[in-house]
Structures are given as structure tokens and as C-alpha cells.
């Protein structure tokens, strides 16, 4: 349990303040070192040769043309993998390099190290690759029929024969989404001269990367160190290995440091995607709009390898209903193997797809019953003490579902544009639309997700907080990828110690134990609690050993008088406390998906306002407002930043982002045709933070960064439906869908 304490007003940068992030200055001056900026003396450059079909047999592979190029130091294939030839976070089913079968487009076949990037690229292109193409499996229903199932999650709760009078059914489809972090994959591997290697690469969980890499390299744990390094975003793209084993192998083979940088095209095929989904839903309610029964069949396209799909489909299935009471649920979720690019983690982790469907269903029910969509949701809203509709787990922690919904609904609606400024109309400077050609729509959605890991996973975070003569340092293996973990950790430790002078050190796998994955909205609670406990223990120890009652930046005080300087406290070296923090136990679900499966939950309500040009099918998002259950705002400014950023990704998911695939090939692996929202695409955002402290986070904080993406997309879709009267069951919603052509 974490200690909920008040904000210490003496501190400039403690919990509850919008203190600046400590890495801001290097970032704005161009002096922040991203992994793609790394260099080492004697460095070689690497390039990858990849498959350009979605399925086939590798009939011929001739490395000689590459080896013949001057400046090439090594060309490696699957045969050169020293240890286990497969990697994977949950199941090691993914070949490090092609094992003879191509199972998705972009599958790496060989890697090259050369003196410079140009030579490496030419050499990779020069390798002779002949593939006998086979028919790729790309249809989800066919995959299901053939039993290509990574995991089936089954939920059966309530009375099988219980039905409701009012029925709405629908089929909803969502596309693959790409995380598109601006920093593409890049890495540097440096051999240590003793058979081991240090690796800097794009990661969200250095220890899990380490485990896989060590097995593939056939080395002992201590021979490989995976280092945290500046990343240009993550959003789930970095949860699985991409280039790490490749460059490590090259580094060990050549005895030299090896660097690689993916360009955007390679990045598109170089990391996992958000699962595309096909969802069949049936909602049954009574005449008062109370949910009686929800049936859902969720098919997730997991692509060629399992990656984290077992957990994604669990998430999807457990969150099929949303934050609503319902006593009978029949849900089946399938993570299906196809020849699409492997799908894995992306902000929301399975909750996004089902939110699209479930929220659309709720709106349809509301229409069917002649009820206001907010009212329908309020009638069904979960409250603490209720069982979760799918798992039956009693929610005995704060979960302000009605509160967030009421708060966002109470916000004033934006005014219609007063001028004909085209930038405030659909079509923007394209001058397609005049104000009289626009219909405004308003839509609501609730987003619901778990925090931290589930299903009995043994999850923990290690942290070490030490006091030195110069101040305090908090150590963690967590990953700062832009989300502001560095600031949160700093603020928590400041507030616990009572000192402003706190630095955060991100340690490599050889220096500290795992902090767990930087995902699942978990680090604020996990690493946050770990450093909180370590800092508390440290403070107690220091006060006890000096007889003081207060720790400050310049020393230990008793009754307002200093009794020891930091140097005196640290006379025998830095004083440190080490914590291995585990969250409360969860359990794996039983055969019916029942059990105490999750640690904690969070909820957010979104309201979207859109202007639609119905004749052209063009949309402008005017506003997305939200009230979110955050537990405790550690850094309000940073929290708003996560909300605004998350909403932008939800906006993309709703109306413009889609990995277009045909026969398993990605047709739009570039920013020309994979469209991210620009500054002109995002509307205004009003964010209300509802603080009902969680027992599972430092100072009551909850993780919060996934929910804005989960809830904003269905709200925007709802608003477009309201404006057009069209069912729009496919995401992203395209102009041709609105115009129905």
C-alpha cells in the first residue's frame, strides 16, 4: 500500500506541481541523445534484407554478391544465430532471421555490417533472394475456421438463458494502426572484448529484451547489458524486439560496434501494429435500458507471430462490455494467426477495438429506446462494489464512472465558427466547404481499462534510491520514451524525502532488476511505488541514524536546527535503499473467464464535437473534451499533455490512420499515405481530472496515458454518426463511408 501524503509546500517540484521535466533543456537545444544519434569508435553500420511477400518458401539465398562488396564486414543469416533461433516475449516463435519460411511481409532474412550505411544498404540489396510465393492467409474468418488461434479467451457469466427484450446487433471492423513514433528504430551494439555485448536499442522493457537476446546469443546473463537510451516515442512499438539481436550478432561476429538506423519505410515493417479487428456484438436490454445480456465475438488479427497477442486478446475480451453493469455476458476473443505483419502492443492494448464496438452498441440501444446516450450510460454505469460484467471481479476501489460522464457532459459545447475561416471547416484550406454545408454532431463514449498486468502475472518493479553528498538519486530500469516517467519519479521521490535535489538515473540490466514493462499504464504505479517505498525507507534510516526529524537539501534537521550535512550522512559512501515492489496478487481466470484478474481500473468519459460535410464525407474535429479518473495528478501539466496526445492518436484511429494491406502487403508505408493528425487536424481539448485516490499508486495516482486514446476514437465516431445518421461500423471512417460509395 502506498502512503497518501499531502503536498509539501516547501518543495518547488514535488507531487502535484507542474514542474518542468529534467530533460527538457537538452531536447529543445538539440543536444538530447537519441538512440539514432549514438556513435562509437570503429563503428560499423548494419542493414537488413527483408522479404517482400507475405508468405512463401525461401528457395535460394546467396550471400556471395554481398560479401564481394568492398567494405562489407559480415553477412549473417539464421544459421549464424549462436543460441536459440527464435525470439518472442511470451512464446519464442519468431525467427531471429528467416528460417526458410516467409510468414509476413518484411520478415528479416539476412543482416549486413559494413563500413558505412551506403555500403551496408547496397550489400543487403545485392544478396540474392528467391522466394516461392504461397497464398497468404489474410482473412480472419478463414483463419478461425482453420484453427489458426494463438489464444482463445472465453467469458461466460450469468444465466445462459437470460435475455432482454430490446436487442441491437452489429458487426464492427477496425484497421491496423501504426504507432508511428517519430523516432524510427535505431540501435548500437558494442562488443565488450570478452565475448559479451552492450546494447542500446528501442525498448520498453529492457529485462525482457535481455532475456530473449541472451538466449539467442547463447550467452550468460551477465554477458549482455541492455541499456536505456533516448527514444523518439514508443506507444507499444518497442515492446517487442526489432533490431537488437541482429546488431548484437553482428557486433560479436565482427568484434566491432555496430549501429543501425531504420528509415521510415523500414520502420513501418519493422515493428508490431495494433491488431485489426472484426467484432460481432449483440446487446440485450430491458425497456428501461438496463443491460441484461451482452454477447460478443472478437476476432483480432495477430499477424504471423504471437508477440503479446495473448495478453491483448485477454484485454479485449475482458473489456468487451465497457464500464457497465451486466449480469450475463457471453464473450469469446480470438487472437488469430495470419500472414499479416505481427500485431502487438499499441496504446490501449485491445481495449480500443472493443470500445469502438461497445460504445456504438450503447448508442444504438439509446436510439432504439429513445433515450439520451448519456442517460443510457448512467443507468448502466459501474460503481465501486459492483462486479465487473465479464470477470465478475468486484470493483472495490474508486472508479468514478458516473462522475466522469456527468462532468464531461456538463462542459459547455463549443460555439459554431463565426467566420468562414476555411481552417475551421472540413476541408480546411482546400476550400471545399462553406459553413452552410456543415452539420455538427456530438458524441459520447466511455473508455475503460485495467492498469498494470493481470491474470496472475508475477509483476514487480525494482528501484533503488540513494543519498549522496550532492543530493538524492532514484534508480530504475523503466523507460523514459517521452511520456514523462522521469518527471513523475523525480516528483514522487522529492515529496517523500522532502528534498528538491533529486535526480533520476535510468540503469541498465546489469545494474538493477526489472522495473517491468513501460506499458499498460503501469509505471506511475509500479516504479512510482517502488521509488516511493525506497525513498521512505531511506528517509527513515537517515533520520534514525542522525536523530533528526526532517531531511532537507542541505542536510538533516531536528527541531529546525541542522544536525548533519549530507556529506556527514554519506561519510561512508552513499546511503541507499533497494525495493522490490509487487502489486497485489491477481489470479488467472478460470475456464469461464472469472476471477480476480486485474489489479486496478481506470475510466474516462469523452465528448467529441465534429463538423461534417455530408456531401463530401469530410470531417473536422472541433473539440474532444474529457473527464478522466486519474487518482491523483502528480504533474497536472504533463497529464494534460498525455491526454491531448492520446486524443490525437484516437482521432487518427477514428478518421485517418489505417495500415492499408492487400495480400498481406502494406500499401502505405510512408507518411505521405499513412496520415497522422497535424496541428490543423486536432480540435480544442478541455480536460477535467477527477481525483479519487487509488490505493495502488503513489499518492493515490493511477496510470492514465492509454485511456485518452481508448475513449476518444469511439466518441468521435459517435459524433460523426450523430451528424450523418449513418451506422458507420468501420474504422477509420473514410469519406467514402460517410457518402456511402
Amino acid at each position: 500500500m502506498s502512503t497518501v501524503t499531502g503536498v509539501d509546500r516547501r518543495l518547488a517540484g514535488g507531487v502535484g506541481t507542474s514542474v518542468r521535466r529534467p530533460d527538457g533543456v537538452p531536447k529543445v537545444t538539440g543536444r538530447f541523445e537519441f538512440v539514432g544519434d549514438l556513435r562509437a569508435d570503429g563503428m560499423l553500420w548494419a542493414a537488413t534484407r527483408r522479404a517482400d511477400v507475405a508468405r512463401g518458401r525461401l528457395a535460394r539465398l546467396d550471400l556471395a554478391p554481398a560479401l564481394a562488396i568492398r567494405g562489407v564486414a559480415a553477412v549473417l543469416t539464421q544459421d549464424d544465430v549462436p543460441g536459440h533461433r527464435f525470439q518472442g516475449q511470451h512464446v519464442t516463435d519468431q525467427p531471429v532471421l528467416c528460417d526458410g519460411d516467409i510468414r509476413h511481409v518484411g520478415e528479416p532474412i539476412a543482416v549486413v555490417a559494413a563500413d558505412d550505411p551506403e555500403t551496408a544498404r547496397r550489400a543487403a540489396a545485392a544478396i540474392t533472394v528467391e522466394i516461392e510465393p504461397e497464398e497468404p492467409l489474410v482473412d480472419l474468418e478463414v483463419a478461425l475456421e482453420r484453427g489458426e488461434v494463438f489464444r482463445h479467451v472465453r467469458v461466460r457469466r450469468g444465466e445462459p438463458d437470460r435475455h432482454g427484450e430490446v436487442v441491437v446487433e452489429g458487426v464492427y471492423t477496425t484497421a491496423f494502426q501504426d504507432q508511428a513514433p517519430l523516432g524510427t528504430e535505431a540501435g548500437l551494439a558494442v562488443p565488450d572484448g570478452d565475448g559479451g555485448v552492450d546494447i542500446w536499442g528501442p525498448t520498453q522493457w529492457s529485462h525482457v529484451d535481455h532475456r530473449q537476446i541472451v538466449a539467442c546469443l547463447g550467452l550468460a546473463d551477465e554477458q549482455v547489458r541492455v541499456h536505456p537510451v533516448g527514444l523518439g516515442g514508443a506507444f507499444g512499438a518497442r515492446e517487442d524486439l526489432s533490431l537488437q539481436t541482429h546488431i548484437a550478432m553482428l557486433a560479436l561476429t565482427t568484434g566491432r560496434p555496430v549501429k543501425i538506423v531504420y528509415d521510415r519505410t523500414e520502420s513501418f515493417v519493422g515493428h508490431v501494429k495494433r491488431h485489426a479487428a472484426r467484432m460481432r456484438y449483440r446487446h440485450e436490454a430491458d425497456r428501461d435500458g438496463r443491460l441484461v445480456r451482452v454477447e460478443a465475438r472478437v476476432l483480432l488479427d495477430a499477424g504471423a507471430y504471437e508477440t503479446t497477442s495473448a495478453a491483448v486478446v485477454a484485454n479485449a475480451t475482458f473489456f468487451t462490455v465497457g464500464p457497465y453493469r451486466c449480469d450475463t455476458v457471453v464473450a469469446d476473443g480470438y487472437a488469430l494467426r495470419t500472414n499479416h505483419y505481427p500485431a502487438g502492443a499499441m496504446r490501449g492494448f485491445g481495449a480500443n477495438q472493443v470500445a469502438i464496438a461497445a460504445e456504438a452498441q450503447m448508442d444504438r440501444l439509446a436510439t432504439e429506446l429513445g433515450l439520451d446516450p448519456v442517460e443510457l450510460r448512467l443507468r448502466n454505469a459501474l460503481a465501486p462494489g459492483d462486479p465487473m460484467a465479464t470477470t465478475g471481479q468486484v470493483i472495490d476501489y474508486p472508479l468514478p464512472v458516473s462522475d466522469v460522464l456527468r462532468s464531461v457532459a456538463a462542459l459547455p459545447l463549443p460555439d459554431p465558427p463565426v467566420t468562414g475561416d476555411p481552417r475551421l471547416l472540413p476541408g480546411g484550406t482546400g476550400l471545399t466547404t462553406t459553413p452552410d454545408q456543415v452539420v455538427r454532431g456530438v458524441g459520447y463514449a466511455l473508455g475503460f481499462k485495467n492498469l498494470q498486468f493481470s491474470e496472475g502475472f508475477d509483476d514487480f518493479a525494482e528501484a533503488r534510491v540513494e543519498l549522496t553528498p550532492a543530493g538524492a538519486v532514484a534508480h530504475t530500469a523503466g523507460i523514459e520514451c517521452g511520456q514523462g516517467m522521469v518527471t513523475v519519479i523525480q516528483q514522487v521521490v522529492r515529496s517523500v524525502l522532502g528534498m528538491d535535489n533529486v535526480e533520476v538515473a535510468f540503469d541498465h540490466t546489469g545494474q538493477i532488476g526489472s522495473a517491468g514493462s513501460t506499458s499498460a499504464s503501469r509505471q506511475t504505479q509500479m516504479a512510482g511505488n517502488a521509488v516511493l517505498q525506497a525513498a521512505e525507507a531511506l528517509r527513515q534510516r537517515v533520520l534514525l541514524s542522525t536523530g533528526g526529524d526532517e531531511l532537507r537539501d542541505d542536510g538533516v534537521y531536528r527541531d529546525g536546527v541542522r544536525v548533519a550535512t549530507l556529506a556527514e550522512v554519506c561519510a561512508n559512501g552513499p546511503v541507499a535503499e533497494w525495493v522490490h515492489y509487487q502489486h497485489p496478487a491477481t489470479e488467472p481466470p478460470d475456464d469461464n473467464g472469472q476471477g480476480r484478474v486485474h489489479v486496478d481500473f481506470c475510466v474516462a468519459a469523452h465528448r467529441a464535437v465534429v463538423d461534417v460535410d455530408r456531401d463530401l464525407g469530410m470531417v473536422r474535429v472541433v473539440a474532444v473534451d474529457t473527464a478522466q479518473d486519474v487518482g491523483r495528478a502528480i504533474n497536472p501539466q504533463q497529464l494534460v499533455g498525455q491526454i491531448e496526445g492520446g486524443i490525437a492518436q484516437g482521432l487518427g484511429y477514428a478518421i485517418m490512420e489505417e495500415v492499408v494491406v492487400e495480400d498481406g502487403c502494406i500499401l502505405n508505408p510512408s507518411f505521405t499515405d499513412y496520415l497522422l493528425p497535424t496541428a490543423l487536424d486536432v480540435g480544442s481539448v478541455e480536460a477535467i481530472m477527477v481525483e479519487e485516490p487509488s490505493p495502488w499508486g503513489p499518492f493515490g495516482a493511477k496510470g492514465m496515458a492509454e485511456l485518452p486514446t481508448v475513449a476518444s476514437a469511439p466518441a468521435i465516431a459517435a459524433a460523426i454518426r450523430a451528424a450523418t445518421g449513418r451506422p458507420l461500423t468501420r474504422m477509420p471512417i473514410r469519406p467514402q463511408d460517410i457518402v456511402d460509395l
Partner: protein
Amino acid sequence: MIVTLEVNGETRTVEVAGWESLLWALRERLGLPGSKPACEQGECGSCSVLLDGELVCSCLVMTSDAEGASVTTVEGLSGPGGEGLSEVQRALIDHGAVQCGFCTPGLVVAIAHLVDHATDPSEADIREALSGNLCRCTGYGSVLRAVQSLTGGDTA
């Protein structure tokens, strides 16, 4: 081939591959890795620099064609002596408009250009001026507020 150009106020002579982009030359040959390669197509603005005072994507400039030109990168836009922060940089930090930081150098250049050229820009003007700078982290709200604090606009 050898190219001579002015970079951040200093005359530099550099040997580049004939087809090499200015972005590449800055990062690999000129010791200025601040500008970032996020798309290399001119679709994201992360590589933005000023070329003879114009805001351009350095990934689309062939270095050999920049012979004699004057280039300003993020490294050249810091405060006096390169140590302190410019008001643009300070505003971005103060408004929480920096998250992962990959788009930040390009934004610093684009905002500096905007602030120098625009008189009393509206919110829409600012968004349009920055529409060539993609950010995947912030959702642009904090960026807008940072710019408005410099241009005197409404920061509500």
C-alpha cells in the same frame, strides 16, 4: 565533393556524397545531429532548418546545392553563446510542449521562423504555420500555448 556553406554563422567546408541530403550532411559530416530524420520525405518537419532565411526540410535539400547558402539549425537557435535558451525554447519547456523530443528541434526552428515573420497570428494562423511539423506525443495543444505566450495571443 567539397561544399562550402555557412552553418549557424560559421563558414564550414565539408566533403559530402554528391547526392547526400543536407540533413545527412549536418548529422554525419558537420557534427550537428540536432536535426532529426523521421521520414526523409518532407512530410514531418523534424529536419526543419532555415536555408537563406526560409523554413525548409533539410532532408529535401541536396547538400551540393546548398553551396554558398546560409543554414541555421536548432543548434544555432539557442541563446547567446549557445549556452542559454532562446525565448522559443524556454516557452516550449515552460508549457510542457516537450515529450519525447524528436519533433522538438524542427519545431524550434519552425516556431522561431513564425515568431520572426508573423504579426499577431491567430490560433488558426499558428496551427497552419506549424502544419508541416508532425508531433506524435503532444497533440499540439501545449505547443500552441507555448507559441501564443510568445505572440501575445489568447493562452486560455
